[in-house]
């Protein structure tokens, strides 16, 4: 039924260099995003250097909501929604894509809050990996309109 290994259906993202302009520096998401670009043979250049495209990241937004109340009528479960707005620009700072966003939602049990801070950090780290995958996928199609909708 037409299943093919990734890479046959569509060629990889044809991008050789990227500069990331982020409102905040040295954040966990930036680290994961940089590694992901390097894994896809796209080198990430420093602030001053020239790059084919510039990825602008705004602040990561975490919305934490109580979604369950325990028998002690206190919060027993939280929902974490992490979103990362981003947009691509060319070297003359002209927008190449419209403002985009990656978003992921996870729930976190809090009926026993022992060690919940470390658990939340582990969960956020996993959510950031998911956000990075979403950013790469959306960028793949937005930066290469000819790939889009070949069908």
């Amino acid at each position, binding site marked *: 039924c037409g299943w093919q*290994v990734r890479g046959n259906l569509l060629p990889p993202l044809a991008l050789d260099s990227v500069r990331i302009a982020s409102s905040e520096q040295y954040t966990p998401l930036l680290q994961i995003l940089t590694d992901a670009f390097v894994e896809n043979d796209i080198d990430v250049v420093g602030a001053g250097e020239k790059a084919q495209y510039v990825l602008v990241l705004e602040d990561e937004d975490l919305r934490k909501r109580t*979604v369950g109340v325990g028998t002690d009528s206190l919060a027993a479960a939280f929902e974490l929604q992490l979103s990362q707005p981003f947009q691509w620009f060319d070297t003359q700072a002209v927008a190449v894509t419209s403002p985009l966003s990656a978003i992921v*939602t996870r729930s976190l049990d809090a*009926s026993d809050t*022992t*060690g919940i801070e470390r658990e939340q950090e582990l969960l956020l780290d996993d959510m950031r990996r998911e956000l990075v995958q979403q950013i790469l996928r959306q960028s793949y*199609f937005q930066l290469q309109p000819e790939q889009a909708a070949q069908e």
Partner: protein
Amino acid sequence: QSNTNSAAELDWVDTEQLSDIEKSQLPAGCCGTFVDPYSPPADALPVEQTPISATAHDIQAEGSRIIELNGQVRLEQGPRLLQTERAQVDQRTGQVTLEGNVTVREAGLLIRADRAELSTSSEDVSVDNAHFVLHQNRVSGSAGKLQKFGERLLKMQRGDFTTCEPNNAFWRLKARELSLHPESNYGTAKNARLEIADIPVLYIPYIIFPIGDERQTGLLFPSFSESSRNGIEYAQPIYWNIAPQMDATITPRYMEKRGNLLDVNLRHLSSYFETELDAGFLADDKGGYDRQAENDIANGELTEEEAYPHKGDDRWLVQLNQTGGAQSRIKTVIDYTDLSDVDYLRDITSGSTDLEYAANIRKFGQITYSGDIWNLGLSANEVRYLNESSQRPYKELPHLYANGRYSWGDWQLSIDSNYSQFDLTSYYQRPTNTLVVGDRLHSDISLALPKRWQWGYATPRIGVRDLRYQLDQAAVKNTSAAAGDSIYNTSPEVTAAHASLDLGLYFERWSQFGDTPLIQTLEPRLFYLYNGYDDQSELYAPLNDSNRALNFDTRLFRMDYNQLFRTSRFNGLDRIDDANQLSVGLTSRFISARTGEEHLALSLGQIYRFETPKVVLNPESPSEAFSYRRSEYVGRISARASERFRLSSDLVYDQNDHTLTSASASVEYSDASDRLISATYRYQRQVDDRASGADPDPDLVYNRSLDQLDVGAFIPLTGSWSLIGRANYDFTFDLELDTYAGFEYNDCCYRVRMMWRKWLNFDYNSGNQLETVTNDDYDRGFFIDLQLKGLASISDRVGSLLSKTIPGYAEREDNLQ
């Protein structure tokens, strides 16, 4: 006062005649807007350097002094346009006098009057019997005498203004002295009177009000509310803009049944730090009112002092939040909250924490360095449980961590080490003679060979984990019993090797949904985990047999899809758990081939255990869930259709017991016509861990399954009416947690929100309160909030309640301003 100018004369254009762009920018509920017909030449020089170009029916110039112009006079001078019947210009003094149907126009400003005086060499204008319009701010009004100074400042005697439509103004602020600073978005009024539907409603000696959205120094609008617990509440916030990066809001709050509270919010922004300090102080609390307490007193269960424990106390709250180093490798975080007593958050609902059923507050400080190879951190953390019966004994001070990542070629060496010192926290009120305190050092060194291809990945990893303690007996408190002496090893140590293999493949094919082309992926993933076993019985009774099992900050992860690919069963570091298991996970994503957006992702997985794990937290209560060869099935669904629809759901099905262990789903829908609907369901089956037949211990909270639904909706109806509603229902105990219903009427320049609310008035220290809820445990309140758009909102409580409980409402509020 010349005849009241018709709306058209004030540049008011009804919706029908508006262009589409103008229609789109029209705020909700408005049926027209001020359109500024005049646009000065872009490069207009300042007034004093520009000649006046005048036209009139006839002009008379006497020498080079007085020039008189009559008949449809029009004077244009740089950024300013003046129109009148008669004008007189004194060339030497630059004095210009206009009489008869005078109009003064600048970009975004219109003044109409009978008479006006101004000077050709400055922007100042002085006008009698004036009507004025500030187009961008949607402000219009009139004044006995109006003076405009420089760029835009308007000072008025006997002035009034509104943001409503000119001919049917719902509210109007009148004042003997009124001044508007549209450039810096604020206005001030002396001896002001607020009239609603032409009825004087409020007299204010002096007030500062925002015309735009920034807050300005001065009295902000007072806010009112009523609740059975605190009676009538009246808060008068005073905003003080100390410096460009520092401001303070001081809010004295009168509470009928408690007394006077002073609340201070201080915000400071520096290039490195962003700091916010919140402090509240209530002297000599009058106790408030609690129907449940009254019943207990009535039937003699409690004395007055027991029912109202905080009567007469001074009660306070301090909250400090600071983040630093946004641009630097060194970042700092401070999250410090302290209270006079745990009931403060329930009794004095000033902050928003009360709406989130906060379970605990913490004193936390952290400084971290993120290098290219090493991430280092130093922190201290003390958590205070508001439900004192579930308070944990330990605080962690300090906690040091160092995580390193070296890579050569394909090889990657990871070093994670954590050192912590645990001691008793003063908030723990149970006997401590069976507890131990001490330092813990946990390190995990592993070598990996991650291989990545376009179609998949393979990551073998081997490593070793080491856990060592330096223990001694905890100080004996809250009991007369003595602590046993330390007969066992005070520095237990556990070491075990671990290995894992992570394999994944990516398959893709074209697919279709309606007319949008999709790419469907199929992503199988295998994760084999082997953790060596090392006997940890030394930790089950660390120093003597009466000691409780050593556990500073660890509990079991609850099983869900995230757990499939984790390398430990515990969320803390107090155990090196053994494992010999294979996790299988399959994910399928449906990705739009146009935008790359992930419209749907389905995942399913399970863990196959080759051996039953032996390491437990507490030998007395081993969880038998792990004895099964195959774990529960875990699934996840997440869906997203542009900005309008979002669903995320986790499911865990236990095929050994043929029951659903947990199911959570949250759906958010919002559309262009501002409809917001959100539904959140959560089910968590919890085995009742009371030994069968044993009667319940009042102190203990027994696990009862959690089965709750929370639905929130904001439905605009016809015209400017909208329905608001929320129902948060608990099926296990068949009771409503928080329910409100109401409506919002959103007119062009004001908005009314009325809401009836019934909410569970939880008491932190009542143990398993949901089991024994009676009708008296509910608080009922009627909330009304009148917001005069562009002026202020009467009570901020409603807005924050809706934003907290209906996802998407906060975003709607932001773009409403």
